[in-house]
């Protein structure tokens, strides 16, 4: 190899290297820019949510103060609905902020409760004119807590701007390691240190937040010192602490297997041999069994099938909706249930059916059973009686209004198609015994419920025709 070729190779090599270097440098700079742009976008969204949150809390807090003193029904309802609107919006803002462990936040719970409570109080005050002593007490307690939360949230927002804090904790730099870093203390934490026996307070004061996220976390633990509100509203209905409808007595594993066997026999699995595969906890818990593709749950208390789902393959659709419902009826009868179907949804290879219990001709909407019916042969492939066992109980159903009196409460343009009695769920765990009127007005179909005791309009549902069945909104 002579010098010339060596030189040539060297030139080409270095040229390639420089081009590659230049390209990767450019790529790096570009990526970096994009990253910082995205970071800014995210930070901006968080900032907006935080600002909106403080604005919302301010509105809620102010309206609460006003609603307290108002002695006029119209204005009180207005302020209550402002509280409702503001707290609803605050829940939404909170959910846009990042948190370490979602769903355990004190603020979340409080604001949700305020929203729920103000919603029911709006209705209450609009009809009755005022809150009772107990409700007033709850309202005052909520107000005190909202003031604290609002103050603390404002403090965070202020610190945030004053110190230009980032959202997410940075890894400690040299300054922080030397102990001269920025830190953020929330107002609530700073002031209430005297009462620092609380575990949350101690935790909060041990670590100083270097980010807004850390600040929110501290705020939350510092607020834990308030006892939880005793308010039980519409919320947290997803979990029933004390089911009302389970039969008495407890069963063992072999009894559970025989209960499941009988059930499977009635839905079309003659000679089934289900096995207990696991246990479940909670007030409706018990034994989980499987047989072929079917899964069943039998409650420990009362020994009843609460849930059943067959995951078998479904063959070509042979039935129409009415035939499938008829078949489901006869299966239910075999299983010992007497229910009335309230709605169906056609989901191609199977349909969903909702059925409720009746008492003296009154539909008990809370005591619901959900069914899934296969469209190839009409077999029951799904059964969920959890709502029924959670809410079914003996009710005292007496009415003060006659049918004609109830009819006189309706809108004049409303044309009745049919009517019956019904028990519907209200806010909280309350129920109302009502006249149910199905009819049309202004080109729409409605279900209107008139309270059978006091004649008030209890609820209105709108009925819509979807391609898969009627939808009640």
């Amino acid at each position: 190899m002579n010098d010339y070729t060596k030189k040539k190779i060297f030139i080409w090599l270095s040229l390639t290297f420089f081009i590659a270097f230049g390209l990767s440098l450019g790529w790096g700079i570009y990526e970096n820019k994009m990253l910082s742009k995205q970071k800014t976008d995210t930070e901006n969204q968080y900032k907006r949510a935080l600002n909106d949150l403080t604005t919302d809390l301010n509105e809620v807090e102010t309206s609460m103060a006003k609603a307290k003193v108002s002695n006029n029904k119209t204005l009180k309802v207005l302020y209550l609905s402002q509280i409702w609107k503001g707290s609803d919006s605050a829940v939404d803002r909170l959910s846009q902020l990042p948190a370490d462990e979602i769903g355990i936040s004190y603020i979340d719970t409080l604001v949700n409760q305020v929203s729920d409570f103000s919603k029911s109080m709006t209705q209450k005050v609009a009809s009755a004119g005022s809150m009772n002593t107990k409700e007033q007490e709850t309202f005052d307690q909520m107000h005190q807590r909202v003031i604290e939360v609002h103050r603390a949230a404002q403090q965070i927002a202020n610190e945030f701007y004053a110190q230009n804090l980032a959202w997410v904790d940075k890894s400690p730099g040299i300054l922080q390691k030397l102990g001269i870093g920025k830190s953020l203390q929330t107002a609530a934490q700073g002031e209430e240190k005297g009462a620092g026996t609380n575990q949350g307070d101690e935790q909060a004061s041990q670590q100083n937040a270097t980010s807004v996220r850390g600040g929110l976390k501290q705020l939350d633990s510092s607020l834990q010192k308030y006892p939880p509100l005793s308010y039980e509203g519409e919320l947290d209905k997803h979990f029933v602490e004390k089911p009302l409808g389970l039969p008495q007595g407890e069963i063992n594993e072999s009894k559970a297997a025989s209960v499941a066997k009988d059930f499977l026999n009635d839905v079309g699995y003659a000679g089934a041999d289900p096995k207990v595969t696991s246990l479940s906890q909670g007030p409706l818990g018990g034994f989980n069994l499987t047989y072929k593709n079917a899964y069943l749950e039998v409650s420990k208390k009362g020994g009843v099938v609460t849930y059943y789902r067959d995951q078998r393959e479904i063959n070509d659709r042979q039935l129409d909706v009415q035939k499938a419902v008829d078949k489901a009826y006869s299966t239910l009868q075999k299983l010992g249930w007497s229910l009335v179907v309230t709605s169906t949804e056609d989901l191609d290879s199977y349909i969903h059916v909702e059925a409720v219990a009746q008492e003296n001709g009154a539909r008990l909407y809370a005591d619901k059973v959900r069914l899934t019916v296969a469209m190839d042969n009409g077999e029951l492939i799904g059964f969920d009686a959890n709502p029924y066992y959670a809410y079914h109980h003996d009710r005292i159903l007496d009415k003060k209004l006659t049918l004609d009196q109830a009819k006189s409460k309706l809108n004049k343009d409303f044309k009745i198609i049919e009517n019956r009695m019904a028990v519907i769920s209200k806010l909280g765990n309350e129920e109302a015994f009502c006249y149910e009127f199905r009819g049309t007005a202004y080109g729409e179909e409605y279900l209107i419920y008139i309270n059978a005791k006091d004649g008030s309009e209890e609820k209105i549902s709108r009925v819509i025709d979807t391609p898969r069945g009627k939808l009640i909104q």
Partner: protein
Amino acid sequence: MYSDLKNKNRNKLFIIMAVSLFLCLALTVTSQAALGDRTLSQGSKGAEVKDLQKRLIQIGYQAGKVDGVYGKSTTAAVKRFQKNRGLKADGVAGKKTIAELKRLTGESTTASGKKVGIKNNDVQLLARCIHAEGRGEPYIGQVAIGACVMNRMESSQFPKSIAGIIYQPQAFSAVADGQINMAPDETAVKAAREAMNGSDPTGGAIYYFNPAKTTNKFMWARPQIKKIGKHIFTR
């Protein structure tokens, strides 16, 4: 009273309008054939096929990529649709199949027939969440994930809409890492529908975790209800 001249003018106007209307219609038909004009089958191409694919996906049948080409996966999706709707399952989108598909993808109406929208958009989002978080789980396990989302709506600690819950920062790992943007499979769509109808195999759970992968103390400390598939469901 009308004069002859006026009548003549009117006739002229009418003819011009009729001709232009006809031209307009003819042009739109040639430029863009609508779904239902002809029978579609494997090998068909065009805007109608695209429409067909979109509609199939809208109601939960995975017809593959929306590319306007009636390929194998579109044929298979049409076959499944036909089977589930009690039609002849031949994979050919004829008049009956297309009419049924159009009906099911149509809007909801009020009693007087006024259109009020499709009303099931949340199913798609919930199905994506279920698919991203729980694919590979048994069907009931997927319904259970959907039920957790639905239960959160009734809890005092969470936002009150499906989107609010799913997109809450740090709520679902599959949202954070972008898996939420994958197209859901048909099982996930079914599970989403079932969960939205209120079916709850979890017994009121609002959290779940995979015990093999989770060391998070908070998760382990929650009161457990039951295990379905790989997930433990907790309050």
